[in-house]
Each structure stands twice: as structure tokens, then as C-alpha cells.
């Protein structure tokens, strides 16, 4: 009812324990935040460690030089392995091309032989297929006098050229009474494969 106070001088006094508890209460949110951050950090670190188990947990100053030289040697190894793989790829590429050439070379011979074997006779004298050398084929193409040309030989050369082979030929025609004989030497430029 009547708020009278005749003594208003006193300043509030606190005990040391109260002050300490108050400070602790004030610091509590800060500590809690730090603790939370630390916990989150540790959890995430543990997760990362779990994922990358090979990783070193800590790199010291002394380790850096060793690790650098290790990385360098690893890098050299990788570069040399890459070069080996490149060379291998090139070699395989060449092998594939060479395999294609040999296959085409022999295959076309068979195809043309099948096509014209009824009317023409083929006598294979020499056939040389060696890696690093030009393919060589020597044969006799015999047909009757009724036919003007040697179709087997013509078509074979066409087929080789269509397949990308560069050819040099040497032919000699021998004229008999009833048959025409063509002696032909075909050299395909395959030494580079």
C-alpha cells in the first residue's frame, strides 16, 4: 500500500560461489556449443576415416618430404605404365591391322578361286606371308582359248585393291594350243605393318 523505504544505499552483494555459478551458467551455452561442434567434428571425422581407411590420420612436417618423394616415384611408375600401355595399344592396333590384311589376302584368294574354279584352273606356285615383309603370291591361271581374259587374276587384284592393298604385279602369258596360261606374281606392300 505505502511503498516507503528510508534506506536505499545498499548495493546488492553476492557470494563468491554465487558469482562462480552465475559465470558457469553464462558460459554454459558457449561450452555446450563448443561441445556440440566438437562432437559433430569427431563424428564426421570418424565417418571419413571409415570411408578412407588407408588415409593417414596426420601428416607431420617430417613426413611431407617422404610422402612427396613417394608421390614422385608413384607418378613415374604411373607414367611408365601409361607408356607401356600406349605401346601395347599401338602394337595391338598394328596386330589387328596385320591380322585384317592377312585375313583379307587369303580370304579373297579363296573367294575368287570359288568363283572361277569351274572355268579356270589355278596352280599356286608360291605364297609368302611373313610379318615385316611384303606379301607375295605366285600362281598360274589357266583358261581355255574360248575366253579372252583371265577373270580370276583380274578379280583378285581388284579385290585386293578394294581392300586397300597396294600391289605391284609381274605377269607373263604363255600361249598353248588349247589353253592360255598366265603366270602372275603379286606383291602387296605390307612390310610396314
Amino acid at each position, binding site marked *: *500500500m*505505502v*511503498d*516507503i*523505504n*528510508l*534506506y536505499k544505499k*545498499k548495493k546488492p*552483494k*553476492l*557470494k563468491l*560461489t*554465487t558469482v562462480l*555459478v*552465475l559465470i558457469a*551458467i553464462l558460459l554454459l551455452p558457449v561450452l555446450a556449443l563448443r561441445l556440440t561442434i566438437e562432437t559433430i567434428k569427431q563424428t564426421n571425422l570418424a565417418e571419413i576415416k571409415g570411408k578412407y581407411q588407408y588415409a593417414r590420420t596426420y601428416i607431420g612436417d617430417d613426413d611431407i618430404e617422404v610422402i612427396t618423394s613417394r608421390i614422385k616415384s608413384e607418378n613415374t611408375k604411373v607414367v611408365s605404365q601409361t607408356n607401356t600401355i600406349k605401346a601395347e595399344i599401338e602394337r595391338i592396333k598394328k596386330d589387328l591391322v596385320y591380322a585384317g590384311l592377312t585375313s583379307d589376302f587369303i580370304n579373297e584368294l579363296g573367294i575368287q578361286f570359288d568363283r572361277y574354279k569351274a572355268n579356270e584352273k589355278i596352280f599356286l606356285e608360291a605364297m609368302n606371308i611373313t610379318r615385316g615383309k611384303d606379301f607375295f603370291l605366285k600362281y598360274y591361271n589357266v583358261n581355255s582359248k574360248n575366253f579372252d581374259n583371265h577373270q580370276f587374276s583380274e578379280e583378285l587384284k581388284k579385290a585386293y585393291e578394294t581392300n586397300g592393298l597396294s600391289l605391284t604385279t609381274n605377269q607373263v602369258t604363255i600361249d598353248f594350243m588349247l589353253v592360255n596360261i598366265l603366270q602372275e606374281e603379286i606383291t602387296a606392300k605390307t612390310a610396314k605393318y
Partner: protein
Amino acid sequence: MQLFNRRLFVLESGKFYTRGLLIKLARKQARILKTFTRSYIEDDFFSEKQINAVKQTIEMLKPDIEDFVIYNYPYQEMIFATAEMPKLSDEQLRNAVKFKISEDFHIPPNKLIIDITKADNYIKTDKGTSKVPIFATKQEFMDKMISFYRGVSGAPEPDMVIPDQLKYLEIFDEKTLKTDIPGQSKLTFLICQDMNYSVLFTFMANKLIDITEISISLEDVIEECQKRDINPQKVLSALLKGSEIGALEYTESIQQIFSEYYEKYTFEAEKAIRGTINHLNIDNPLTRIEVVIVASINGRLTLDLAYHIREEGILRGANVIQMPLKKDYPDDTEDLRTIMGLGYRGVRELGRYKFIQKEKAKA
């Protein structure tokens, strides 16, 4: 450590008794922890017996440095006045009031302590000014009292020092007072009988408009006992405890002393009320009296005083009632009414708390 609860240490000391009270405030409840009372009979304030009693109280209750400390201030050292003031800010009002009291009572302003009631208690006049109730005292006595308590008795520094008579207003259920109806406001008188003073509070509706002394108190009973070779200490103890006076020896003489005392008391109270009515210049004052409320240091003395004043027919048979106490006033602290008033004031300063019964507190 008082972080989640507060404690109050209340010290009520005077010429006849020193009382201490320790109250704990927690969870919106005020609970009495300890009480201590020491009675003695001395002629003056700051007597040796009073020093010892205060020391004992401090030893028994062991107040803490963080306790909220409340002291009573002797009624005799208080000046009550009202001053008609224009509308001013609180600080300006306090300064103006200080100079006015300084002038009226011939005390230099720097040797004066003043405090004014809160603005709700100002009485508005037709001129647009306000009558401000002022409480003042001399700085010298306050310094002496504080150094007496702190230096000699080792008591803690107070947070509040309250004029002794205001303790009655703190336990008084002010809802009893009727609200203000302009032109029809009723007068209520509150007579408070203490050990060494009696005081008359006058209310216009629910506003305190005057405080006057009634020149009789229980001290007169003690003096009369001393004159008649009746052990005054026993009588004092009985009065403080609110014991049945008839249970004491010397029943006949005591009854006579009390009978004469109450007769005189009613007369002095009537004189004080009529004097107040005269100097307040109120129109038709006798028709505006609502009730005469009576209070004393405990329930027993309040009952006796109310009975005698009613029987004597104060103010031609005005309605006399015992002072209604606050709703939460603990029943088991009837004999501690005076210090409870100071306790209520301290509790109010710290927030909204309700007192609980001692038994409830123990349970």
C-alpha cells in the same frame, strides 16, 4: 547461494523486544524458516539489553550476506506530513518535498531522509494539484541506528528500512476499504496499538490521508505494573505472546490496570479521531465514517481492544471491527503480527509470493 530462491532476514527491534524472522521465497511461495524473540524492558533505544538481544537474534538466525534485509525504524523518529504539490516528475517532486519539510521542521536538506508514497496514494484536489503523503526522518538517527546494528551487534546492512507503524498496513487486507466515489468517499480509521506508541491511520476511501499519534500505548500498562510491584517482564511476555492476562498472578490488580487503560485508550482514540477530522476540513465528517478498524501486536490484544472500544461507544457507536488480515496470512503466526508486517513488505519488494502455513511448509 540464492540463485533459484531468495531469503529475507527481518529484524524488528525496539525498547521492549527484538524479534528476528527468516523467510524463504521459492516457487511463488513464502515460507517462514526461523523466528526468534527476546523481550526486555528498557527506557531508551540503543540500550545494552537491546544490543544483546540483536546479537542473540543474529546468532540464532544466522543471516546470509545475500539475504534481503529489512529493519524497522522507530515510530518516534518519523515525521509524517502531506504537501500540496503541482504536477512534477518524481525526482523534482522528491526535491521539492525535501525542501518543504526542511523548511517546516528546520532541518537542513542534507540531514534529512525523505520518501514519498507511490502516485496511487496522492489525493487529487480541485485545483489540479495533488496532496502527497511524505515520510521523513533525520539522517543522524538513521546513521546512528545503522552503525548500532552493524557495528555493535554485527547485523548485516539493510536493503530496506521501514517506518515501524507501516508494518500494520502491510498485513491489513486493504480490500476492506471501499473504492473512491467522488463526493461520497467514506472515511475509515485504523487504530494500531503497539508496545510504545499508538497510531491512527485515516483513509479517505482507499487512500491514506493522515497518520496521527494516539498518546497512549501498552508501555503505559508496563509502567503501571512497575508502580504496583507487578513483575513487568511477566506482563510483557504475556502481552507479546498474546496470552490470557487472567492466567497471570496478580489477576485483580492486572484487570484493574487494563480496565483503566482501555477506558483511557478509547478516550485518547476519540480525541485523535476528532482532531484529525477537524484539521482535515471534511464536510459532514461524522456521517461519512464507514468503520473504525482496530489492530494490535497480536490477535488477542486486537480482540480486547476492539471489544473495549466498541463497549465504550467510540464516535457515538461507530462500527468497530478487528483489522482483517491478508488472505494468505498464516494462522500460526498470530503472535508474530508485527514482524510479519515487515516481512510482507520485503516479500512484496521481491515479487509476488504467497505465505504458506508453517505446518504446510514442514509437510
